[in-house]
């Protein structure tokens, strides 16, 4: 315990340095703005702003990117409550009761509770992250290539299975991402694969143009297709502080949703959106008046908002301790760490302790900043909703282009970005998730290296994956995960059959 406190002390020394405080503030501010603006989510923002951080030291940059990530979870609730439109997907559940509260004239307490729930959950999440990180690092240090291979496979399968409409679609895009990851020189023998004589492909596909294309450009195309008109909502917000009854109603909700959100966030592939949905459903089940959910109860706002913030702290656990991201946003952050030449994984805690603990401490500070920032400035955020989409969209594309070009001043990257932008738009249009592609592209080379190293060590004997207990457990989870939907499908079919025969 004392070394945790000692490390945390060191972390605060790093995070309280004026330059890091500034970047933390900029991060949470930008994150809140992004969360408020509909149609542009945290992963898009982290991707297009990543090139801006190349000139910074990695610690400051990571502090800022993390601030954008959890800041956007705060901002997303504002539009959910006021105009019934989630600023980003993790606030979907907040619209159910939040908007009803706003219609009943209680927008103020809804916004206030959203901010306070986010603050409490964010802080709980950071404490849990801190306590869980050390033991996990200790376990991770014993991991060999077989374990890492199994872990990455599990992360890809769960992400692919959870974000899409169907498991097959998510797995398809995940496998496609891995396939894209094999482009370039083979990591072990140097043989060139799928390069088609294009020199820019020898080092593989750059991840940033792909990520910016799939997230930012595709999102702009999707928004442009829907409509660029938007409604402006006029409302007067009075009294942001929840009443005593509100507090009493959320007494059990806040800790429950915080812990649940954190646990879901830690799981690879399950991000803050799933966390908020689960928290809402759990709260409804635990409630003494479940029928009132959806009519504007305060627990219906507190639960998803607490859960999605705790989840973004939870998502940092696999990223920092294992180097395996669990979501689109953390995948982009992993790419960022690698661009700076850092090797994410258990050794990060030893070799870059100041970076890791500085980041953790900055998340405490960032949560305080968000609370201070959000309660008095909500009126300003509401006005921000009036930025016309026809101005916003060109600027997202402008930043996408310039940011992509900034990576290596290579026009080829621009073509890659445009191609993946169009691809991402078409895929999303037909219900195929794109985050697994980015995760696959980033994990692909690592996954292949671990797979082949494990088999070199075992002299080609595949039983190495079942003889090592941790690897075997992880792979069993993969098999279970893939078999479950098929079994469910077969079961449903078997049940439907007799009824169909009768008709």
């Amino acid at each position, binding site marked *: 315990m004392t070394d945790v406190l000692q490390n945390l002390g060191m972390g605060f020394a790093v995070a309280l340095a004026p330059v890091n405080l500034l970047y933390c503030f900029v991060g949470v501010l930008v994150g809140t703005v992004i969360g408020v603006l509909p149609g542009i989510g945290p992963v898009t923002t982290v991707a297009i702003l990543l090139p801006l951080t190349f000139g910074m030291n990695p610690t400051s940059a990571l502090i800022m990117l993390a601030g954008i990530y959890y800041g956007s979870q705060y901002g997303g609730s504002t539009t959910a409550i006021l105009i019934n439109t989630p600023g980003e997907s993790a606030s979907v559940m907040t619209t159910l009761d939040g908007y009803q509260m706003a219609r009943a004239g209680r927008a103020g307490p809804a916004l206030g509770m959203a901010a306070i729930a986010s603050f409490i959950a964010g802080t709980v999440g950071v404490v849990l992250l801190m306590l869980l990180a050390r033991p996990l690092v200790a376990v991770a240090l014993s991991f060999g290539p077989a374990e890492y291979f199994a872990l990455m496979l599990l992360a890809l399968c769960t992400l692919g299975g959870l974000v899409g409409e*169907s498991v097959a679609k998510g797995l*398809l895009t995940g496998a496609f991402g891995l396939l894209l990851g094999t482009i370039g020189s083979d990591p072990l023998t140097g043989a060139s694969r799928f390069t088609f004589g294009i020199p820019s492909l020898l080092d593989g596909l750059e991840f940033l143009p792909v990520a910016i294309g799939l997230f930012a450009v595709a999102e702009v195309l999707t928004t442009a297709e829907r409509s660029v008109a938007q409604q402006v909502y006029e409302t007067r917000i009075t009294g942001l502080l929840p009443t005593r009854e509100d507090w009493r109603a959320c007494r059990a909700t806040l800790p429950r949703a915080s812990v649940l959100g954190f646990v879901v966030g830690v799981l690879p592939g399950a991000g803050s959106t799933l966390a908020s949905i689960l928290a809402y459903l759990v709260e409804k089940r635990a409630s003494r008046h479940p029928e009132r959910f959806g009519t504007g109860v305060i627990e219906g706002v507190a639960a998803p908002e607490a859960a999605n913030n705790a989840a973004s702290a939870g998502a940092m656990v696999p990223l920092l301790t294992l180097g395996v991201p669990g979501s689109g946003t953390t995948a982009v952050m992993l790419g960022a760490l690698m661009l700076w030449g850092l090797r994410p994984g258990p050794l990060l805690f030893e070799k870059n302790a100041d970076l890791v603990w500085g980041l953790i401490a900055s998340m405490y500070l960032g949560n305080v900043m968000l609370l201070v920032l959000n309660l008095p400035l909500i009126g300003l955020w509401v006005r921000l909703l009036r930025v016309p989409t026809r101005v916003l969209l060109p600027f997202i*594309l402008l930043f996408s282009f310039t940011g992509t*070009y900034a990576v290596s001043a290579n026009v080829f990257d621009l*073509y890659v970005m445009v191609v993946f932008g169009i691809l991402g738009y078409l895929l999303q249009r037909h219900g195929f998730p794109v985050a697994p592609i980015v995760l696959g592209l980033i994990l692909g080379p690592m996954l292949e290296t671990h797979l082949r190293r494990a*088999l070199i060590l075992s002299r080609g004997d595949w039983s190495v994956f079942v003889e090592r207990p941790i690897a075997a457990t992880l792979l069993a989870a993969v098999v279970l995960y893939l078999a479950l939907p098929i079994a469910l499908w077969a079961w449903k079919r078997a049940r439907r059959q007799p009824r169909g025969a009768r008709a």
Partner: protein
Amino acid sequence: MKLDGTRITGAVAALVGLLAVVEASRLAEDTLTGGPGPRFLPVSLGLLVAVLGGTIALRPAPDRTRETPAGAGAVLRIGGTLAALVLYALVFERLGYLVSTSAFVVVLMAAYGERRWPVVLAVAIGGALATHAVFARWLGVPLPPGLLGP
């Protein structure tokens, strides 16, 4: 069997997977150290993509994806965005950052229905200059000077 966007996407993915298998089959398989070589993963993944794509293409029932027919306005916005993206990438280095970027923003704003031309021009030129300042001055990115350059 109804041909919908999901099935077409699945079929295209299956084709891509098969092409990857064909292309990767030319690679060497064995390494001196034992274990799979550079061919193993691309071929397996190509097969996996082909099988999953095929499954989706031949699935019994189409799912409920929102495939609303796009209206004239949507076609203009999507078409305008696509044209602007491709053209911008093509002329980015030739015309230089400031000229191509201003033109890019003008085309996009027009496609999205902004008709107040002084506003369009102000936003376009202002945006180009501002992002140029951030990236070229502050971050030191070598943006192409093009027509306006030395």
